[in-house]
């Protein structure tokens, strides 16, 4: 179980308790206000408190979106990235809740409003998906893998491993050469992302490495050490595959969140303009 879902301590799950507390307080205040409003009046998105919730939500969402700009200005002293990320998380979430208050928990009408609402939901959900991946995958990687690799360099590292293995195999006896050709060579061609690593970061590796055991029994001592080295290369490659698979999720997830966030911000601007104009 630990390999699949390593236990995450609360301190690593909630990294900034101050931000969490402040957000809960803000949410509490807005929720109370909304409850009072909803009890006595019908919340109208275009007027009074309903409009106010909409404005605050828009400000929070634009604020959250500024994190993308901050990532392109590391050279400027704009405070620590960690603070920006916390605002992105908590501010963005609060913004999403305020959208619900803004609409009075009713479904939108009209294509544009449906799109706007749908995008806001999508961005929020994909954000939570990203957050879950960011909390889960790093811990999964450290829980069962001994190597660490930079994602972009993995293809190059695999190539280096292959070259090393082939050089070594050239000096080996026939049984190792045959074994290498039939069981190892294909795995060393390129990084091979596999879904199994999401389920068990180490299980697949252990069983595949076990293939070497039978051959080792029949080899003379000097060949055994060469086989051990090939096994180590093979194991390292499989661990790199695990990194490749899991780190890929950490990168690809961004495509579900970032581009559409810009679309959402543009649509919010359009929405504000339309409301103001009409």
């Amino acid at each position: 179980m630990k390999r699949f879902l390593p236990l995450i301590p609360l301190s690593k799950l909630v990294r900034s308790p101050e931000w969490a507390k402040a957000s809960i307080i803000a949410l509490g205040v807005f929720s109370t206000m909304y409850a009072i409003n909803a009890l006595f009046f019908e919340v109208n998105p275009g007027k009074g408190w309903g409009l106010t919730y909409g404005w605050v939500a828009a400000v929070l969402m634009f604020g959250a979106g500024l994190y993308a700009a901050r990532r392109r200005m590391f050279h400027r002293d704009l405070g620590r990235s960690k603070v920006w990320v916390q605002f992105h998380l908590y501010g963005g979430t609060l913004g999403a809740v305020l959208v619900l208050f803004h609409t009075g928990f009713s479904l939108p009408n009209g294509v544009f409003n449906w799109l706007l609402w749908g995008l806001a939901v999508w961005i929020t959900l994909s954000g939570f998906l990203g957050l879950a991946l960011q909390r889960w995958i790093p811990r999964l990687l450290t829980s069962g893998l001994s190597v660490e690799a930079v994602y972009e360099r993995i293809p190059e590292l695999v190539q280096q491993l292959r070259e090393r293995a082939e050089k070594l195999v050239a000096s080996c006896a026939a049984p190792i050469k045959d074994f290498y050709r039939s069981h190892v060579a294909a795995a060393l061609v390129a990084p091979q992302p596999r879904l199994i690593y999401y389920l068990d970061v180490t299980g697949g590796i252990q069983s595949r490495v076990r293939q070497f055991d039978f051959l080792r029994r029949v080899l003379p001592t000097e060949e055994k050490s060469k086989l051990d080295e090939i096994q180590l290369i093979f194991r390292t490659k499989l661990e790199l595959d695990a990194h490749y698979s899991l780190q890929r999720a950490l990168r690809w997830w961004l495509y579900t969140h970032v581009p559409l966030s810009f679309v959402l911000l543009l649509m919010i601007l359009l929405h504000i303009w339309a409301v103001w104009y009409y």
Partner: protein
Amino acid sequence: MTLGQTQLKRLEQYKDRWTSYGANMGILELSEKPTPQVLKQFEIFKDYDEKFLEKISPDISLALWRSGTVLFEEGSYIDLAFFIVSGTVEVYLQKQQVAAPIFARGRTQVFSGREEASSGTPARGEGTMYRPIEPKRGGKEITFLASMDFDLPTGTTLRLSAGDILGEIGALNGWPQSATAKTTSTCQLVQIRTAALRLMRKRSAGLKARLDKLYKERTLISQLRATPFFRGINDSFIQALAQKVELVSCEPGEVITTEGAPADAVYLVRSGFIKLSQRLAEGNIVVSYLPKGSLFGEAEVLLDGNAAWLFTASSQEYSELVKLAREDFRSVLAEQPDVEALLWEAVAARIKEAGYSKRNISQSEFIARALDNGLVEGNSILVIDLDVCTRCDDCVRGCADTHGGIPRFVREGNKIGNFLVARACYHCEDPVCLIGCPTGAIRRTDVGDVVAISDPLCIGCGSCANNCPYDAIIMHETGELWPPDMIPEGLRGKEKVLASKCDLCYTDPAGPACVRSCPHGCAMRIGDVQEFKSLLWKEAG
């Protein structure tokens, strides 16, 4: 003719470029790899046979230096000693310098203000991700050696002539030169690199005695005077003691004491690291380590009825020690009864640590890895908590953005526990990268222990990158060519390559960009091994 801005800038650079050792501007003639027959003409080589001289000759050169040339400057690191064949060299202090303890607090402070140092492990999320560099040893350390290699009062000049040696103490110990040396006439010098000097000293008892004598005369007395352990002792006693001590030089891995063997002395570590290990079951485990300025053997002297070494001590790298006979140490204690209480504290701490290491094998493993990976040298080690790191590379991007597009570190390195020790400069206590830089481009800045490279002075020779044992210096292509007026001439028109390394963003009050840019707070700067250890232990629960 009016000079353009660029030319003025280059002239300014040239003015500074060759003031450190390695400048060929002051050398009139240079002959490398002299034959054994040539070397035999000089008194310093007379004890050696031709085969040995042939072996060390690649590390020796003969140079004729112009009068008035600076051989080395105060604070510079050189990897050679000079033997004067003819001419005179004057040695003097440019700055006010006293025999200060090596670990003086003032030398290691950096980035005061925004985030003050806090004690213990930095807690993430509490504004303590980056801590100012702290002195590595606590205030209760009682043994300090000063890094003086000439005991010169400020304002005075020492004149050296034919037959004298200079620069050898800094070179052998990896210390910065504490004085400036300048030729006062045309000088013929034999330049001996550290590797050859070590071999020569090992091979010849005569040379060892001579170097030891020089060390005792030029340095040891002032070092002992500045050492708290000896502070209350009168001068005549110190002088007598300095004559009695033995100077011991150790090679990497050399065993100094063996657990259980009769203990006959106390050692002061003047450079390098000493590994202490103890027997456990069928093998030995590392229980502690001692940096320069430490004392060991005091436990064996203080514990009544114990005459055997409690630890096996071995040298982790080239180390230099001062050996004090048991009886002499006792006589010092008799003169200074107050010191004994402090020594007992140190002994108790070491025995406690050893016991803990034996019970917790992971602590021993950590110490061994810290020694092997050079973490013990570090003043600011970049570690990344891999349990939290999403591998977004913002730390690298932040570094690159701050340094003109070229990152100063690689997010790769050794993994210890769940932490990655990134391949970034450790800003070592003894920065070997500084040794042999021909232009003085790489230097310790005036801000704490920060080691930085000045781009306008770097000629891309790669000496620092080759010297760095931790691959923390990157040689990068700039995409430009060296200008046609470049010095050295050999570089003109060739591709411009520069060395780059982490400078801790020391000019930026906001602190290192890598730490600032990390969105998850998992990139941290660790001031020393103890801090790293507490971080690991905290993680392990």
